[in-house]
């Protein structure tokens, strides 16, 4: 259910007690307490300016005939009405201006805190929870919460207005007031039941609309295929069915939505009729004046509207509060990677030691068990093994993305837990399997990890890779826009940019999770050149998928179930005819020149 996906619970969600939740909300509202007090005063004042004109007018009508100086009496009371009406407008203006400021600032503050919390969270957290849902908490839920506050001031002002009117009416004539007040339970009951039906048909309408969307998405995406094979009619039928269904569901929904106000109108109309009659009797009996009777008639609409709105208000309060709960859960989620010291390092050498490391992920079975590995400064190692052998675990521990359970991990002989993480990671260059680029230019992306690199340096490095030919394939060179998540560039180009990012950074430790995507042979050759340049200067840990990368490493580490079972160089490992040879036959054989040369032979004989 796409519409409710943002609302689904996550593991880190927690149930706050009402008091805890309110105190959290209060903490965010506190800096604005001055503004909030002003808003409250304005709201209270406005409930008077909204309900008093009717009273003034009724007095005007009653007493104008008796007034000594009629003209000045008219001017005086009209002046009062004028002042109240204009005052009401100005108070509303102030309330809206103040509250839009408080709410916008609150949303800004809350969403920035939520984003900071998400950005600082462990990678384990992000692996576990979908990015879409986190994003919706940061942007949509905070807006939802802002709506709640807006609604609260709105409804508060309307409740006050209703109460003020009710008091005035009761004071004038309680029996007639009773007629008006008796509408409250009817309206509330009607609204509650109406909402139930309305929500049901609205949900059906949304579902039908989602089906239309799905049908259009599917058929438009496949339109080229449909045209290629002359099957337009078949996809039109699919669309038509969804479109017609949506229409039928939506006219049902329209019927329900169209009927709400007319029923309220009818109810109000019937009450008006009763008021005319009952009022007339009261006037004859001398219980109220004719002016007071008119006040009842005038006030009725202003009294009813707030009641009307309050009924629908409660469900929205719940929506707003659970949005707040989701935001705070994100902010308060605990971290699993924790440092014991804050040693700030300028430049590391690049020696890495795994001593008896045991690592498991979220309490599942061990990915690494009593793992030992010594990597010399400047050495490059290629890690090979089947899926799940523990290849990525090694890189994820070195980058301190994950916490291990026992043993020790040393960088330059010092416990990795005692470093300041930021200073440590500044010394590491990481290229992930699907290189991630941010919207912006190629140059901005290359500079991402090292913002102070000069253009000259960048150009020099770019030129040193195959005479900079890869740069020429980009329409605007360094200034080419890469698009959202780098979508405007091909996989090979993204790979090059990610490697350039590392080349300008000159890190002590280089970690590569090699791409499996297919890249054209010319670009691939340039990637190889760039890779070799990095390997020369850094300690490198390569999770290799390409034969050429495996062969360019100083040492190959063969992993099986979290342990090193073989190591050495390509030739020696092949001659051993062990696990490496098996891996070679499974993953690398087709990349060899021998295979390529004999491909024609292979396919011809099957």
């Amino acid at each position, binding site marked *: 259910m796409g519409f409710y996906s943002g609302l689904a619970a996550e593991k880190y969600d927690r149930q706050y007690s009402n008091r805890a939740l309110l105190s959290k909300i209060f903490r965010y509202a506190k800096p604005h307490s001055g503004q909030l007090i002003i808003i409250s005063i304005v709201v209270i004042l406005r409930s008077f300016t909204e309900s008093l004109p009717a009273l003034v007018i009724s007095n005007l*009508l009653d007493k*104008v005939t008796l007034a000594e100086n009629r*003209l000045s009496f*008219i001017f005086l009371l009209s002046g009062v*009405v*004028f002042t109240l009406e204009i005052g009401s407008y100005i108070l509303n203006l102030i309330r809206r201006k103040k509250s*839009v400021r408080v709410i*916008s600032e609150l949303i*800004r503050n809350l*969403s920035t805190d939520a984003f900071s919390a*998400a*950005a600082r969270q462990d*990678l384990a957290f*992000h692996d576990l929870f979908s*990015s879409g849902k986190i*994003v919706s908490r*940061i942007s949509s839920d905070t807006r939802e919460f802002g709506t709640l506050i807006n609604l609260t001031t709105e409804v508060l002002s309307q409740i006050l207005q209703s109460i003020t009117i009710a008091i005035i009416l009761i004071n004038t004539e309680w029996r007639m007031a009773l007629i008006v007040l008796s509408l409250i339970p009817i309206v509330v009951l009607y609204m509650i039941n109406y909402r139930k039906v309305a929500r049901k048909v609205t949900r059906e309408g949304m579902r039908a609309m989602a089906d239309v969307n799905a049908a*259009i*998405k599917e058929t438009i*995406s496949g339109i080229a295929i449909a045209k*290629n094979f*002359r*099957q337009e009619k*078949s996809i039109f039928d699919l669309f*038509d069915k969804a*479109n017609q269904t949506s*229409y039928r569901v939506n*006219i049902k929904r*329209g019927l329900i*939505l*169209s*009927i709400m106000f007319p029923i309220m109108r*009818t109810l*109000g*109309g019937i009450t008006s*009729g009763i008021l005319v*009659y009952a009022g*007339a009797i009261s006037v004859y009996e001398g219980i109220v004046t*004719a002016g007071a*009777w008119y006040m009842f*008639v005038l006030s009725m609409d202003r009294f009813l509207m707030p009641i009307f709105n309050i009924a629908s208000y409660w469900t929205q309060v719940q929506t707003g509060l659970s949005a707040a709960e989701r935001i705070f859960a994100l902010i308060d989620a605990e971290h699993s990677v924790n440092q014991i010291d804050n040693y700030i390092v300028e430049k590391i050498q690049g020696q890495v030691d795994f001593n008896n490391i045991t690592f498991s992920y979220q309490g599942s079975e061990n990915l690494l068990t009593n793992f030992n590995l010594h990597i010399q400064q400047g050495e490059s190692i290629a890690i090979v093994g089947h899926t799940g052998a523990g290849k990525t675990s090694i890189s994820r521990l070195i980058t301190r*993305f994950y916490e291990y359970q026992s043993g020790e991990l040393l960088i330059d002989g010092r416990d990795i837990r005692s470093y300041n993480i930021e200073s440590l*990671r*500044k010394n590491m*260059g*990481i290229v992930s399997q699907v290189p991630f680029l*941010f919207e912006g230019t190629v140059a901005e992306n290359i500079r*991402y*990890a090292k913002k102070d690199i000069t253009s000259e340096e960048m150009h020099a490095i770019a030129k040193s890779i195959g005479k900079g030919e890869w740069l*020429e*394939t980009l329409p605007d060179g360094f200034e080419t826009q890469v698009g*959202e*998540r780098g979508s405007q560039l091909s996989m090979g180009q993204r790979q090059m940019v990610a490697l350039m990012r590392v080349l300008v950074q000159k890190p002590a430790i280089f970690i590569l999770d090699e791409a*499996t995507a297919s890249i*054209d*042979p*010319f670009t*691939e050759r340039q990637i190889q050149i760039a890779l070799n340049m990095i390997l020369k200067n850094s300690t490198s840990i390569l999770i290799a998928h390409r034969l050429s990368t495996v062969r360019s490493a100083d040492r190959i580490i063969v992993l099986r179930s979290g342990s090193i079972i073989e190591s050495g160089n390509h030739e020696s490992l092949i001659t051993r005819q062990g696990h490496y040879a098996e891996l070679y036959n499974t*993953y690398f*054989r087709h990349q060899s020149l021998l295979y390529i040369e004999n491909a024609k032979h292979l396919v011809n004989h099957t």
Partner: protein
Amino acid sequence: MTITTESSEFLISTRYKSNRNSPVSWVISHAVHQWPFMLMGIIGAIGNASLASVPAIYFGQVFEDLVDLQPDFESITRIALIILLSQVTRGILQFARNYGFELAAQRMERNVREELYVNLLGKSMTFHALQSVGELMARATNDVREVNYMFSPGINMVFGSINFLFIPLILGPQFHPALIAVPAIFLILYVISIWRYLVVLRPITSQVRESFGNMNSRLAEAIDGIETVKGASQENYEIDLFRTNAIAYRDHSIKQGDVEARFFPLLLLALALSFGLLHAMLLYNQGLISLGNVISYFSSLSLLGFPTFTSIFSYSQISLGLAGARRILEIMKREDNLDQNLEGYHEPMKGQVSFNNVSFQYADFEPAIKDVTFSIHPGQTVAVVGQTGSGKTTLARLINRTYDVAKGEICIDGVNVKDWYLDTLRSQISIIEQDIFLFSRSIKENIGFGNPNATQTEIENAAKAAQAHEFIIELDKGYETVIGERGVTLSGGQRQRLALARAFLTNPSILILDDSTSAIDSETEDRIQKAIFNAAKGRTTFIITHRLSQIRWADLIIVMRKGRISDIGTHEQLMNASLAYRQIFSE
């Protein structure tokens, strides 16, 4: 004049022809077909407003009766009943107004979407190759919805409330001619201030939307790329960036809030009520009207509240609807420049292809293909290689006239492609794109898509030739497995083999394969090799490929570089002639 789509590739009879000259005339041409419902809505709107004035008129009369203290219960009872009945009737008319416009709006949504969809089906491949699916989706869903909302609640509220503006204007002069002043001035200022409000608000709301979009897209990117952010230890940079974006969004929201807070018609209403009261009282003081008239007049002024409150959203709803209509029309009117050439060459294709000095460029861009010349025999396999952006894909798309050349000519079997009957040309050329699209239907239906009458045996044979049979029968429901259902996901290689099977069933003379899959393991690679080799047998085949092994066994290799052929020949020729080529074959 209506622009018809007679030259389009797919036609289906629609309910009626619409007028596509301008957004307004287009919307109107749809609306007139809903006249019974519109009429119901308009009658409801006028009736509702007229009956709203009934209590206003009678309140004054009742008041006078009461002040005079001449108990006439019969008259009071009658008036109470009239008010009661008129308001119940008004409820019914209001419902007629709401539901009439709602029905018209829903029917229009359905019809407009259908018109757009049929139009899209009729558009050429050229159009669809260039058009992003996301944009078409937005037109067919959101913009069509906007046209719906434009009528309900948009026009519903405008029609419904506009009548209320005239009640005090008509009622006032009944009591005294001077009483026209306040409602008349109100009406004029109301129109001006709403106009100004919309003009001022529009740029601000788009700024708000834009700043929220900026904030949100960077936020989504940062969370998606969190590993990169952390790896480069740029958390603080991203937080600062978010803070800046959030501040921009906040500031724009405040700006919008300020404009909305000022909403001038509300002030006009306050002024109209107080000056109207004063004016009427002064006339009463001069003995020109009665107190009952004052009450009736003042009650009618209170009715101005309705158009004032609804105008906050109803007018912008209409302008949103027209903007949506404009975008829909813009898509529908975009024409393609290929003609079908119904009288054209209409023979079975042998598969001889020649390019003669061909150049091509996308609108406003620099040439994508420059002076390309080559010729191949029927049945040859051609590997096209080169870096991204070198023009490989464009080259292939010129063959079936997805695009037309700008210069030079392309001939198939010695006949210029422009002289072929388009349908004959395309039905004998099959293209397998990089991103392979499969419908959310069963595997069997996907393979048989181009040939719905294919038997199970034919489908299985095609799957076998494409090396897809084995992985298909391993799926839970074999050939009946529905793609995309319950987590059935296929790898790129598997999708490609299904597309190959699909192509086998239609047996094209020319096959164009844009291959960018990569095999994780050698065994899969073996299968892909065999499948493509089978596909290439007996027909002219262009393979845009990254695979060295395919390049190796192709009959001819074309190396593209910046839109030109940089090298062409057999593997042996290129190994001798080209350094770049030699380098990629070195280990």
